[in-house]
């Protein structure tokens, strides 16, 4: 298992290098001039002299390859430069906001797991009866509802009309409920239907039939044979939901004034704040790759066949 993890970690290096080249080139070869952005965001009139000074200050007048390697060497030391907008080190601010986004994403993932599991199991167990119909309707609504729309509806109902929950900012647990639900709804519904489908497939497999014939208790069969085997594809799906949740968090952070990294990145994109955009894209790549790695480890832990396959291929 350790070899497996090390191998996967090493495979991140070329991937991140490729991403870094693409990010650098897209932002530098695009129609935008970083020097112009820098002057605009610093409230300096963009005279020819000021533009030349800004290019020299930002090192934009050197060959692109030199610029890339210098940027990369700083990036490897987690130095992504100074934000054009805030004039503060990018890494410092991103690391300040990142825990808030992870907190929101974490609660959203928990909501996804806690609600999708029982609802999916009930829908499968009572197929064709009201729990199944209920889950179908819920899934239909959930996947068709844009998260920003749900966010505003919840704000109007629970924040403005009923006054139960705060509509903005970060604080206690009450602050996270609406943003997390708006982010989690779609993943919850997708996961719920996935669990239902997997469980039904497992329920009709032969080993379940034989277990029943052996007289094994129904609750034991559901828990240890059906659910456990159904969870394997769900874990893969959860890994992908991390991406959905982090993407959804960007929207929720803007609407709920949540001080997260997504909101910081949206402002940077609007302002063409190049250092922040570069750092954000690379950081999100690392998070995605790490989540995929985490999913694979869980996958191996859940399914002995994968562990054994890995061990035999290494041995």
């Amino acid at each position: 298992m350790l070899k497996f993890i090390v191998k996967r970690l090493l495979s991140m290096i070329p991937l991140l290098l490729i991403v870094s080249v693409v990010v650098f080139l897209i932002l530098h070869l695009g129609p935008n001039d970083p020097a112009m952005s820098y002057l605009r965001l610093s409230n300096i009139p963009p005279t020819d002299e000021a533009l030349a000074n800004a290019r020299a200050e930002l090192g934009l007048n050197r060959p692109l390859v030199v610029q890339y390697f210098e940027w990369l060497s700083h990036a490897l030391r987690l130095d992504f430069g100074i934000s054009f907008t805030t004039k503060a080190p990018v890494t410092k601010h991103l690391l300040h906001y990142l825990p808030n986004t992870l907190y929101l994403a974490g609660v959203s993932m928990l909501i996804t797991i806690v609600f999708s599991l029982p609802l999916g199991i009930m829908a499968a167990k009572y197929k064709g009866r009201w729990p199944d119909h209920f889950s179908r309707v819920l899934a239909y609504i959930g996947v068709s509802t844009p998260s920003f729309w749900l966010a505003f509806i919840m704000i109007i109902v629970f924040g403005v009309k009923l006054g139960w929950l705060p509509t903005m900012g970060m604080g206690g647990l009450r602050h996270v409920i609406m943003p997390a639900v708006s982010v989690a709804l779609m993943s919850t519904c997708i996961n719920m239907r996935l669990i239902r489908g997997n469980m039904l497939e497992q329920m009709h497999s032969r080993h379940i039939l034989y277990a029943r014939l052996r007289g094994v208790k129904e609750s034991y069969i559901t828990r240890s044979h059906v659910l456990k085997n159904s969870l394997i594809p769900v874990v893969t799906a959860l890994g992908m939901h991390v991406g959905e949740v982090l993407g959804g968090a960007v929207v929720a952070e803007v609407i709920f004034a949540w001080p997260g990294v997504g909101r910081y990145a949206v402002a940077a994109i609007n302002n063409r704040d190049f250092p922040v955009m570069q750092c954000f894209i690379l950081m999100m790549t690392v998070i995605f790759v790490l989540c995929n790695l985490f999913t694979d480890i869980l996958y191996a832990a859940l399914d002995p066949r994968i562990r054994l396959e890995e061990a035999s291929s290494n041995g």
Partner: protein
Amino acid sequence: MKQLLCVLLSAMFLGVCGPAAAVDYSPHDTVVYSHMTNVGPLNPHMYSPSQMFAQEMVYDPLVKLQEDGGIGPGLAERWSISEDGLTYVFFLRKDVTFTDGQAFNADAVVKNFRTIMNNESRHNWMGIIDKIDRFEAVSPFEFKLVLKSPYYPCLEDLSLPRPFRMLSPASFPEDGDTSKGIKAPVGTGPWKLVKTELGEYDLFERNENYWGGKPNPANVLVKVIPDPVSRAIAFESKEIDFIYGEGQINFDAFDRLRKTPGVEAKISGPMGTMAVALNSAVGPTKELAVRQALQYVTDKGSIVRGITLNTHPQADTYFSPIVPYCDLKLEPYPFDLNRAADILDKAGWKIPQGKKFREKDGQPLAIDFCFVGNNAAHKSIAEVMQAQAAAAGIKLNLLGEEADSFYSRQKGGDFGMILSPTWGPPFEPHAMVSSMLLPSHADYMAQIGLPMKAEIDAKIHEVMSAVDKKERERLYREILTTLHEQAVYLPIFYSVFFEVYRPDHLKNVGFGAGGTDIPFEKITIE
């Protein structure tokens, strides 16, 4: 395994990154306002990311802009100007201390002026920078400023929110150069910045010893809310008490709030002009006839009704008549399609048989109209104007681009028409008119094709150094009349500030004198 999964995820996300505590404040003595970003480091001598309204809260100028547009006492209780307009002596208040206990005196003023002038290239957008010859402390409470040549808006420039604001001498860095940063944001203003939580809020506490009288509320809490829709909702759910400014909420949100019982929604007087600059150097707008026709085809009333929901007054002149020197009774260009058609016909721009748009010598009457594409209000204005121009056979090609491309076009004069809002008080008219001399500004590029541009520029130089008020009135009249007659600007509406609050919670809420001054100190909390 399910439990394992839950525990792992919970530990990873919740254990590691718990929620921050919400800010603790008393609603009975705190005004809760919101802004799109944190207020920044609040360096009084520098620009972004320090926010101007917060610089106004913490730092005082020598002289202050008054509500009538005039200049009144600030840290200087009075001043004298020599007859030649070159020497200004400011008599400073003797009862002022910085909020860190440091004394305010002429030496502190000299120290602030010195660091500002050491970084003069950063501030050369202001006319006064080029004019300052020397300055000195004549006595502990007398500060003398000598100019190289007369410059009438000297006091106006000194009243601007930055850079001529007074920082405590103890907050200067060791080398005295504040352009690289300051030790702490300490001024003599009505408020002290006491806490900043990045991305969440900034907390100000009143200056108990403020020379202008103790502010009424004990604190001002500025929450960070970037989105205007979220801000309106935050007001409705009582997360914030007060909305103030331009662009803080959308037109429709303001319209909804002003119809909400128990909510007071006020509109300020003109705070600038939403205008379009027409390029007199390139394309069809080189011709006066085309520029005039564009004035007549624009139905400003429908833009005001349809886009601003009647919240903004229609603009007939580039500067509002309430701006000093600008009540010139100029003849407005009314909405008149027939007149526009007549002017274009006479100029040779005719609609060929079976075609929709006018042509002259085989060239279509098509004009590039540039604006920042992600600004919803600007986009709507451009779309309405496109439809209105089409009715007279003028084709407007809308170029909604991101900000950098927009400013590149503005700088290079690569536009036919460009949305170019004015800066509002305290920058009008003098700073705006001065900027007409700078090639990086839309005004300069729009005017450069005028046959009398050199004459206009000469008059701008002349008016800035005119000591006699009557002479200034004459010169401003000539400059602004020429620009109006040459139809270089198409003013649409005067921008305004919105102010929204609940009168059962806040009282004595008014508008500040300038565009950046929010009079928190006068507000009382019920």
